[in-house]
């Protein structure tokens, strides 16, 4: 390798960007060429000084902040910021209003649960007393149907009350939607169980399944009610 070729590669040599074979050839040349070694040393010194230069700071001749602040306050420079940023809200409004809406919703749920629990008194364990009163083979089929109809009516009333309370607070729509979606899952379970029970009305397991589904709905309302009382 001659001096011209070696010096063309010194920058890459310093950055360790040469292929191994090429690096070896450069090093072989440097080992026998004082001029190129001096060139390499000169580049190294420049880069060392550049590092020192990089750490050096220069202050402006005047304080730029007052003028910068005026420009920041100009509405034209706020265009790129979202409406939430411009209003100083880092989160959507419904998040910081949620606590207020949640209290309203949970109080409504508590009232609904309280109404249902007065209409259908529960044992301490929260189990429907009528579940144990049902026995296969007796008049349970007719009694169960009446109880299920009454439960349907009461749960619908409670949900209407909660829905109306949520509708009165426009920001609570999302919260009620989530809650109602959970109840709808239980509705589907109840519908499927009732359809099966119609085919097999004496089936005790189906009877318990339906009552269990209603129990879960009531538990959901009871839990919400307890949450409000604990809050």
């Amino acid at each position: 390798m001659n001096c011209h070729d070696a010096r063309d590669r010194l920058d890459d040599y310093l950055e360790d960007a040469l292929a191994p074979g090429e690096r070896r050839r450069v090093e072989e040349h440097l080992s026998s060429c004082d001029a190129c070694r001096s060139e390499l040393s000169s580049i190294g010194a420049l880069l060392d000084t550049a590092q020192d230069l990089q750490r050096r700071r220069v202050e402006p001749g005047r304080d730029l902040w007052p003028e910068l602040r005026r420009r920041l306050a100009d509405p034209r420079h706020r265009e790129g910021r979202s409406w939430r940023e411009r209003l100083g809200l880092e989160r959507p409004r419904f998040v910081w209003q949620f606590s207020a809406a949640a209290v309203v919703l949970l109080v409504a749920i508590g009232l609904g649960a309280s109404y249902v629990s007065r209409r259908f008194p529960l044992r301490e364990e929260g189990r429907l007393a009528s579940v144990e009163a049902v026995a296969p083979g007796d008049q349970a089929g007719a009694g169960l149907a009446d109880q299920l109809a009454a439960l349907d009516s009461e749960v619908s009333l409670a949900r209407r009350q909660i829905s109306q309370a949520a509708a009165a607070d426009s920001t609570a729509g999302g919260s009620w939607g989530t809650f109602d979606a959970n109840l709808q899952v239980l509705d589907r379970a109840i519908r499927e169980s009732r359809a099966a029970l119609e085919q097999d009305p004496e089936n005790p397991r189906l009877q318990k399944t339906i009552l269990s589904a209603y129990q879960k709905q009531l538990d959901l309302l009871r839990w919400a009610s307890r949450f409000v009382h604990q809050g």
Partner: protein
Amino acid sequence: MWGRMNRTETAARLELKEPPEQFESRIRAAQRGEIDSFERIYRRFGARIYTMALRFTADAHRAEELTQDVFLRVWRKIGTYRWESSFDTWLHRLAVNGILSGLRADSRRFSWELLGEDVATLAGPARPTHPGRVLDLERAVASLPEGARAIFLLHDLEGYKHREIAELTGLAEGTCKAQLHRARRLLREALSR
């Protein structure tokens, strides 16, 4: 240009340091639109950005303008900062892009063209007035042609790789390497006078 500068050599004094968690709170406050918190961010990084702008432009007045433009850009975009990199790195990237954009938008012709063969285009100080090698280099860099100066600053001071410089400038990577090679040669010659 140099006569207008007030020099403060100690970076630690200029870049006001505060505990990381406190600075993080300040960033979040600025993201919420609190200008007072943004002022602290400016105070922390302002000198660094001004210094970089001054080196790229070799013009103190233009450097002041570009510094303000950079911080206006930071103000507009701070809401997009997602804590995926350090704030220092994020701001530095914005600053480099902002300064290069400003250079391209300048009324003066800004050229990425290769240096000519005439070494005399690098005016440089005929006789350094200050013995400090760092200051000599500062003056010599200011005397480089704009495009070569920018590439030298991006690579040897700001630490960008050739591939990144090519993306920033729109030049081929080989061209960037060639410009850097010649810039270094001219600087070494200026410093050896």
